[in-house]
């Protein structure tokens, strides 16, 4: 059984930018341990000397011309869908 502590879950939550409740930490600890247990069966496979497959298109270096394309979308329309904005800029709480 893969051992996952509450601290491990809290660390993963931090890496994932998730502010979990205590109840969620407990539930996710059990779920994550179960999923890791299941995927552990992959360790049985001998992959010595096998290259990884990261993509399945066989496409390589797909280039485009270095010109700006706004895809027909207006800047103001994008600012308008932000939860908060001011003077044409997206607004967030103070960073420092």
């Amino acid at each position, binding site marked *: 059984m893969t051992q996952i502590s509450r601290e491990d879950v809290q660390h993963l939550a931090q890496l994932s930018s998730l*502010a979990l*409740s205590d109840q969620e930490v407990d539930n996710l600890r059990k779920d994550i341990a179960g999923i890791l247990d299941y995927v552990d069966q992959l360790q049985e496979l001998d992959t010595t000397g096998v290259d*990884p497959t990261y993509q399945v298109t066989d496409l390589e270096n797909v280039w485009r011309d270095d010109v700006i394309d706004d895809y027909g979308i207006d800047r103001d329309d994008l600012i308008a869908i*932000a*939860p908060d904005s001011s003077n044409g800029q997206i607004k967030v709480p103070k960073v420092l």
Partner: protein
Amino acid sequence: MVKISDFLNKSAKDNVLKALADAESKSEYHALLSLTRERALERAEAVDRGDISGRLAGVPFVVKDNFLAFGAPTTAASKILENFEAPLQATAVEKLEAEGAICIGKANLDAFAHGGSTENSAFGPTMNTYDKDRVAGGSSGGSAVVTALDIVPFALGSDTGGSIRQPASFNGVVGVKPTYGTVSRYGVVAMASSTDVIGMFTTDAEDAELVMDIMSGRDAKDMTTLPDFFSVKNEVPLNLKIGVISESMTDSVDLEVRSITKSYIERLKEAGHVVEEVSMPTAKYSLAMYYIIVPAEVSSNLARYDGVRFGVRSKKAKTLSELYGMSRDDGFMTENKRRIMIGSYVLSSGFFDAYYLQAQKARTILCNEFNELFTSYDILISPTAPTPAFKLGENTEDPIKMYMSDIMTVPASLAGLPAINVPAGITELGLPVGVQLIGNRRDDALLLSLAKSMEVK
């Protein structure tokens, strides 16, 4: 069941009004999250005036609510995008609209397409077409059900590990997962970029051919699209060599699913095809590969939902880091969080080699097994899902049990191969069962022509 041709050369406005009325009278299935009534009627009037024409002029359709489309919010069935009005439309939608098709609404899904039952929707589950106590399948459950209920003749979905094929199987319709890179993903909410594909639900293979013909092709806005290759095969395929994946026909698979698959195989033989058992020893590991690779990609793709540039921002947050954390915690479903955190785990230093790298190497072995089989066989066949539609709530407590419903569909996704669900029979309880036809890369048209030749009219 209705076909695309039933809607052609008719009043587009009548078509749209009828589809909208059907959607409302069948709302108890909860297949749709929104209707795009106003925009649909405007477009119908334009078609009727002759301002828009094409191969789908006046034909109503539905998109899964992870496609960016005008006329209603694009929610991905999540709280964080509850009010998100897309500033652009998906290329797939634009191409259909250019042929005169009219989107009438947006279908329910598991939030961010994470799930196999549509029970992970933030807005409640979709019911199965044949039994309202059972799941629609997922994640494209709503799209499957609107097609099976004859509300529209076709609907769009996305398939990352079975999200089109499995709900198509559960609701008795054709579901197509094209070769990876066939249809542009521009304007579709990304889940796992190395396996996400766009496909469709239809009531027969001929309609799927038409929709594929329109949607497929290279798109400068999606650099992963393949050069154009799809063209409909009109001739009936003869003397194909077809391999039955023996690992998909074991005792762990529902008895009726196996017997319906066997009858379909008998019919293939009667049609003159050679059918033989084949083995894919690595297939049993594909779900484990999938639940490492996909969460890794999910954790990266879902980083953008942070309450800053779009979507819902937590009102409780006082600092920027609280804004990220609280907006994401409020806006995601539990399954979204599980996948994001598993992804963070398998990609973190110290675990990367053991999980992520090992899974990507295993994926190579799986791809090689497929390549080897396609040197001798034209098409592979298996059941689409190990069971017919299960009961609502039956698998929600145990994520692994839910993941198992994708065990047949995940291998083709990891290898980027085309695969389709074809309705094959009905169980004693009256539930549909589908078989999955898997082809070699770019053999989408061959799969559809075989499915078409096998349909009982």
